[in-house]
């Protein structure tokens, strides 16, 4: 069933942190929509606000020092920002689940993995002990954990990184969430294990129809997984397009720079071996330049860049925040 309103709509989200050094604008007017069964990739370098965006949706921003200043996060037609903490708790882990980057630190080391999954089932689905046990085995089976009936009695430290990530995914899937926020789900894993986990996430999305917000710094993972991609830079989305369009015709100078600065495994080696780079470093979020925040590193910079560019539409679905594409 295709609904008129998207599953998740984030509008003009501003999340800031009040620190001793000043006000850090971690998320600076982010807006996007996500339909069910869709994977939206949120990509950018460290400190660009991609994780904070994910945490804002789940209401997990520590307050203080953090604060969501403005914006709306409309999930299934209601604005999550108007919810009380108690209401949020019934959503979190239930309608919206999260998969974290480091499965070792996000699982509790003193409980067995089976216990931790049963806990989710008890809280959100109120099933009996016996049922919970059966469901746990089933969930672990779904995510491809070998010998689940035995392994559910193990502690996180007894498992490898890949297995722990499978447990995390099983836990996220327990309540058949409508939306999963996966924050760097494979970054801590080796490449052969990463391939296994990405395949698993893909399969689960097909089977359950859940939407996924995939947060990563790895453009390769994005290309592999995402339907649409939003590239973030210093707290804002600078380019937003269907995955193929983004890689075929990247429009923002930052996106181009990112794509060119990765050594390509599928392209012949250049003689000089030099990579194209983006000059300079990411500006401090405490002290962003007025206007386009990429201007100091951009090779196409003009005087116009001192004004903040709005989104320009390259096509119906491809928008970019850069004056170069002004019509």
């Amino acid at each position, binding site marked *: 069933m295709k609904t008129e309103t998207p599953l998740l709509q984030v509008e003009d989200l501003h999340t800031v942190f009040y620190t001793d050094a000043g006000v850090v604008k971690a998320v600076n007017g982010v807006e996007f929509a996500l339909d069910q069964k869709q994977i939206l990739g949120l990509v950018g*370098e*460290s400190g660009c606000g991609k994780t904070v965006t994910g945490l804002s949706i789940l209401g997990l921003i520590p307050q203080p020092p953090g604060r969501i200043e403005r914006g709306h996060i409309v999930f299934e037609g209601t604005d999550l920002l108007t919810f009380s903490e108690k209401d949020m708790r019934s959503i979190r882990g239930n309608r919206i689940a999260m998969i974290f980057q480091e499965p070792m630190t996000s699982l509790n080391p003193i409980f067995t993995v089976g216990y931790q999954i049963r806990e989710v089932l008890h809280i959100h689905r109120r099933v009996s002990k016996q049922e919970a046990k059966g469901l746990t085995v089933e969930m672990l089976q779904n995510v491809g954990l*070998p010998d689940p009936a035995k392994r559910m009695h193990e502690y996180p430290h007894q498992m*490898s990184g*890949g*297995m722990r990530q499978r447990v995390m995914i099983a836990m996220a899937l327990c309540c058949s969430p409508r939306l999963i926020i996966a924050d760097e789900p494979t970054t801590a894993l*080796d*490449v*052969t*294990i*990463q*391939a*296994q986990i*990405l*395949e698993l996430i893909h399969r689960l999305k097909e089977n359950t129809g859940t939407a996924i917000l995939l947060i990563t*710094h*790895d*453009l*390769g*993972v*994005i*290309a*592999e997984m995402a339907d649409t991609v939003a590239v973030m830079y210093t707290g804002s989305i600078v380019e937003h397009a269907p*995955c*193929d369009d983004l*890689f075929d015709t990247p429009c923002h100078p930052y996106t181009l*720079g*990112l*794509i060119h*600065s*990765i*050594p*390509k*495994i*599928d392209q012949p*080696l250049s003689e000089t*071996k*030099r*990579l*194209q*780079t*983006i000059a300079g*470093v*990411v500006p401090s979020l405490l002290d962003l330049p007025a206007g386009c925040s990429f201007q100091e590193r951009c090779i196409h910079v003009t005087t116009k860049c001192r004004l903040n560019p709005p989104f320009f539409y390259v096509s119906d679905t491809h928008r970019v925040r850069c004056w170069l594409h002004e019509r």
Partner: protein
Amino acid sequence: MNVEPLVRIDRLKKHYPLRWSFFGRAIAHVNAVDGISLTVNRGETLSVVGESGCGKTTLGRCILNLEEPTDGVIYFEGRNLKAYQPAKMRQMRRHMQMIFQDPYSSLNPRKTVSRIVGDAFDIHDMLPKKERYRRVLELLDIVGLRKEHAQRYPHEFSGGQRQRIGIARALALNPKLVVADEPVSALDVSIQAQILNLLIDLQSQFELTYVFISHDLSVVRHISDRVAVMYLGKIVELGNCRDLFSQPLHPYTEALISAIPIADRKKRGRRIILAGDVPSPLNPPQGCRFHPRCRYRQSRCAGKEPQLREVNTDRWTACYYPL
């Protein structure tokens, strides 16, 4: 060109004791490096790739004599490193330097950049005091830092800049060999490209030889002349970079390469997904160490362990049935 390679490793083993019996004898070992023979030629970049726990870092540390090998010999410019007395070894160290993965923990937070880079001259008693500072500034310039950075502390720098400091430190004594252990994996992609370019430039400028340890195959393909693929403490494939990536011989190499996510959807090949995890190096499988996960395995693979052999010119693999 000298015939003698810069480094020659002969049947190197490094076992770490894990448990001891009541009488203090080790009864269980982790075989981090388990019989590796390898040469590093002058002026080349040899990359060592593999997944976590395959022993690539241990190998790098053994080459620099930072770990004492359990067995086997390492020759540096034809001389056995073990034969050096500690004092002599310390002098030798100026010819071999290391760049570390984590630019945050590998720089002393209480020293200024000029001390960090200049310490090498103190240790080796090389330059008069006045010259030292001049040389430090020169080094900072080479790695793309500014003069005024010399008096700052590491915490004032970004990750990429810190890695530049680490590189300046490694270059201070004009080393012949630089072992770079995951030098770019802690960095963001746009910064990673800057550091890779710097490493490539420095190599041609100073005729450096690199042993480049990494888990990132796209980076390895970009920077290397030859590549050694490790799996559970052994080299499973060794060869020149171009051919190894275009036509891998070992099933593990094939799977590794196919597992890399590729940005261009049209060029994406068929993905080979390996079943299961890397077995524990405590208790590696009998026979070929890769055979439990190998999709081409045959009965012979579980028997005697295949040895690394030359299949083609400069193409070595430890597989009975190379692809």
